[in-house]
């Protein structure tokens, strides 16, 4: 029995994907941007059933023998993916139009990848999860190589593709081992069966391989080396999408398998993710200190943030009791807030790179003096990433520390200390960019602003949404906190 109401958001986005592809056939070249409008309208429509579902009485709607579930977690993440898509489309319009090829396909691919994320949030068995993850990744490979005339873009797309396929293979292999040991594909089934096989080395290997697979997706150290190159070579809006949408999808996967499917084996994934978290934070931050290119700097910062997001997992795996909900809530809060501020940072990169004609930090000297609006936005988003109150990032770090210290033992306190030191290191490289922009003298001949002057209206709208989001969430964190709390009901189940 299908629950069409529950499936409506995904169906509407799927319809939008097709509509965008169809519209591309009929739109003349100079009006291709209308397909982005179609996409935005479709995404807006998809929000309607989500709100009616959220307002409805049924907390959990389960379909297809529990393989596909719409609960608070799924709804929160679906809204997140839709809003991410919204912003990415807004960021893309002017950028893609400037390059003038394959506009329709571009929007089609972005939306298809987004749909994968939405499906993933609802998936509650290994096969659905895997298919959804591939739907996220497949279009992303193509998007990374979207500027086909640019050898750099080609190179990184291929790199990204090979790593992506490798990680998918590892993930699938792990899943097959888990299936073989537990005889079940559904998360609930695995959870029920895992008690009897928890000691089996093959089962442990299966879990670890699944984590490695997702480790590539979220670019956690030591599975991160594709990320900086890919981020640098891909078109910037695509990079923004990869660092937020694609990474969030990876975290949805880790959240689901750890807290639901492998809920009986936290002593396996807890220590493993402890190591990944500590390594990602430390390596990401230390390497970011040396970056000259802003996109590469943000790539390493996003690796470090993946580490911060993994911290609550380690805590949840290492301590007993009802701590799971808070840890789950912490990661969800972090993912949501990171999404807002990182999209903002990339939007700034797009605008500032266009204004200065360069992506190097040093060429942005004095940007604040001749483009103060851009300078203020950069300050807001970069310091939010650094976690300085009252910008949204502080709350993400705050709940992360809260989750890790709740039932403190030696391991969690050590991880908290590592995270605290890393938070200070991170400030240094964010502040270096801000310092260059505001405190270094502008070059004597500032390049004239490329025509048309100013920030494109669509990008300005994205800036507005993100800046308001960062400030509102920073001052009133409950705006995110309550959703993360609702979503965390999943972990207690």
């Amino acid at each position, binding site marked *: 029995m299908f629950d069409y109401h529950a499936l409506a958001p995904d169906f509407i986005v799927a319809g939008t994907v097709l509509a965008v592809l169809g519209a591309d056939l009929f739109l003349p070249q100079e009006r291709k941007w209308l397909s982005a409008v179609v996409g935005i309208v479709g995404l807006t429509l998809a929000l309607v059933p989500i709100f009616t579902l959220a307002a409805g009485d049924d907390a959990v709607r389960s379909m297809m023998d529990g393989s596909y579930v719409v609960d608070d977690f799924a709804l929160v993440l679906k809204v997140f993916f839709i809003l991410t898509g919204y912003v990415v489309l807004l960021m893309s319009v002017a950028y893609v139009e400037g390059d003038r090829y394959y506009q329709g396909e571009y929007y089609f691919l972005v939306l298809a990848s987004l749909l994968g994320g939405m499906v993933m949030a609802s998936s509650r068995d290994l096969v659905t999860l895997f298919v959804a993850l591939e739907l996220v990744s497949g279009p992303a490979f193509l998007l990374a190589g979207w500027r086909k005339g640019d050898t750099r873009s080609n190179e990184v797309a291929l790199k990204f593709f090979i790593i992506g396929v490798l990680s998918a293979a590892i993930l699938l292999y792990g899943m097959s081992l888990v299936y073989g040991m537990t005889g079940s594909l559904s998360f609930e089934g695995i959870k029920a069966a895992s008690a009897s096989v928890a000691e089996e080395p093959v089962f442990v290997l299966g879990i670890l391989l699944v984590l490695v697979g997702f480790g590539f997706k979220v670019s956690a150290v030591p599975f991160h080396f594709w990320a900086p190159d890919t981020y640098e070579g891909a078109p910037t809006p695509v990079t923004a999408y990869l660092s937020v949408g694609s990474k969030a999808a990876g975290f949805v996967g880790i959240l689901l398998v750890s807290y639901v499917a492998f809920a009986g084996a936290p002593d396996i994934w807890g220590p493993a993710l402890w190591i990944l978290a500590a390594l990602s934070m430390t390596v990401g931050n230390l390497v970011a200190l040396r970056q000259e290119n802003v996109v590469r700097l943000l790539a390493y910062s996003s690796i470090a943030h993946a580490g911060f997001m993994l911290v609550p997992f380690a805590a949840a795996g290492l301590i007993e009791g009802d701590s799971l909900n808070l840890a789950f*809530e912490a990661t969800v809060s972090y993912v949501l807030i990171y999404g807002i501020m990182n999209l903002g940072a990339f939007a700034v990169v797009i605008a500032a790179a266009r204004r200065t004609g360069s992506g190097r930090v040093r060429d942005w000297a004095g940007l604040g003096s001749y483009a103060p609006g851009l300078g203020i936005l950069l300050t807001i988003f970069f310091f939010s990433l650094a976690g300085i109150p009252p910008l949204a990032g502080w709350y993400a770090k705050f709940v992360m*520390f809260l989750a890790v*210290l709740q039932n403190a033992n030696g391991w969690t306190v050590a991880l908290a200390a590592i995270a605290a030191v890393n938070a*200070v290191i991170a400030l240094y490289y964010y502040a270096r960019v801000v310092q260059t922009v505001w405190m270094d003298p502008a070059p004597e001949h500032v390049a004239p602003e490329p025509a048309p002057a100013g920030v494109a209206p669509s990008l300005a709208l994205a800036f507005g949404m993100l800046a308001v989001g960062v400030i509102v969430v920073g001052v009133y964190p409950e705006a995110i906190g*309550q959703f993360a709390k609702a979503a965390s009901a999943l972990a207690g189940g």
Partner: protein
Amino acid sequence: MEWFDNGWGLSLVVFAPLVGAVALLAVPKKDEETAKLLALVTAAVSLFFAVVAAFRFDYAEAGSLQLGAKLSWIPAIGSDYEIGIDGISLPLLVLSAAIVVLSIVYSWDHWPEPHNPKGFLILILFLATGMAGTFVAQDLVLFFIFFELVLLPMYFMIGIWGDKTKIRLPGFSKEVETRLYASIKFFLFTLFGSAFMLLGFLALNFRGGSFSIPELAEMGAAGQFDGTFAFLVFGALFLGFAVKVPMWPFHTWLPDAHTAAPTVGSVLLAAILLKLGSYGFIRIAIPILPDEAKSWAPAIAILAVIAIIYGSLACLAQTDMKRLIAFSSVGHMGFVMLGIATLTPVGITAAVIGMVAHGVITGMLFFLAGSMQHRYHTREMARLGGNLKLMPILGGMLGFTAMASLGLPGLAGFWGEFMALLGSYQPLEGLSVSVFRTAMVIGAVGTVLTAGYLLWMLQKVNLGEPKEEWAGHEFHDVDRYEYAAWVPLLISIVAIGVYPKIITGAANDAVTALIDKAF
């Protein structure tokens, strides 16, 4: 006026400047007059309500929280918008609102390079909100937010409007501008401290189940926090507050930041920002962890006297007038911390009055140093001299303020030092009397050194004949904006000096209540 007592009054004090800052964003950059007026009006509104709060305050009940409110803020983590003031916060709140207004008045005609009054004023107003908010916050998360809110504006103030002379750092081949080095150093030091402070707050929340400072203080008084846990938490809070005060040996950011900051930045740093740290000790660390405070107290006292002696000796080695005043802050805050370490009503009241007096006096000294630099274009004391002849009024003010700073009886600086030493003669029962009496003696030697370096500075700067290089220069004496900014400070130096009850009237009862509850 019921609305005022229900938290609206204090919220207005805190957020009026923030509203002004946001409104300033909409003012065109060229329209400097509107920008200045808007900033002054919002800061004045904040001060006005702070003064109203001082009149609405029930001094008979100075020990309990008043004019406060508690509203749901972040239920997801159990944190509330809880505010309120007692006799300890009140003087500091009024001081911070007042210093902000005077800073804006002073700035009216003294813009540091690269000009841009709009940006500068926005930062001052942000600072105002952060400072006032810290003094009214009664929830640890709220306190943390306000405590951190001052970082960004001060970072930009030093980094953009700061000193552009180049220095070569040991171990680096390239020269770097002082402002860049000082601003990031200030930022990193403070953030390092507050990261650990935050961990301490979280730990308290897990053990106590609340972020509310009054509730946690109740639990602390009942002895709910003990053992290794309490030791570690106190250590974490200590790091956060000690960097901010700054206590020796965490003080190294201070001389750089103070010297590099523009005049108003130095004034705000010295007058208010340093107090956030010592206030944190009084408001949070001592009431919530009284037993740990007792075991840490001798260590704090020892660090405090080291700061007194070290600060004074460092002053004697300075050639730069502003840097000398900066190091004097290290010494003066040493007296404040010594008072706190005694854990007695006398000592902590001394700390409160010392904080206010230091705010007024050192704020004034930085104003004067800034104005002298503005006229002479140097801070080298060797090149100054005979200032009293060139600018009799400004020189006279400098002499007067220096006298206040060295603790001349009858002026504001006297009470904090005197009472801190008095308090350490008889510290809280259970504390080692010999340690504190030794500290008292060394502290007393410190007062002599303090007098020594300030008189030495006066002799170099104010007395003697003007140097030849200034022959033929026309120096204009104190101008009207300077009068407007300085006269209130000079009056309060005398007022607090002859009638310290302005501060102690409210603070004494509050401190006694705090000590009685905790121990």
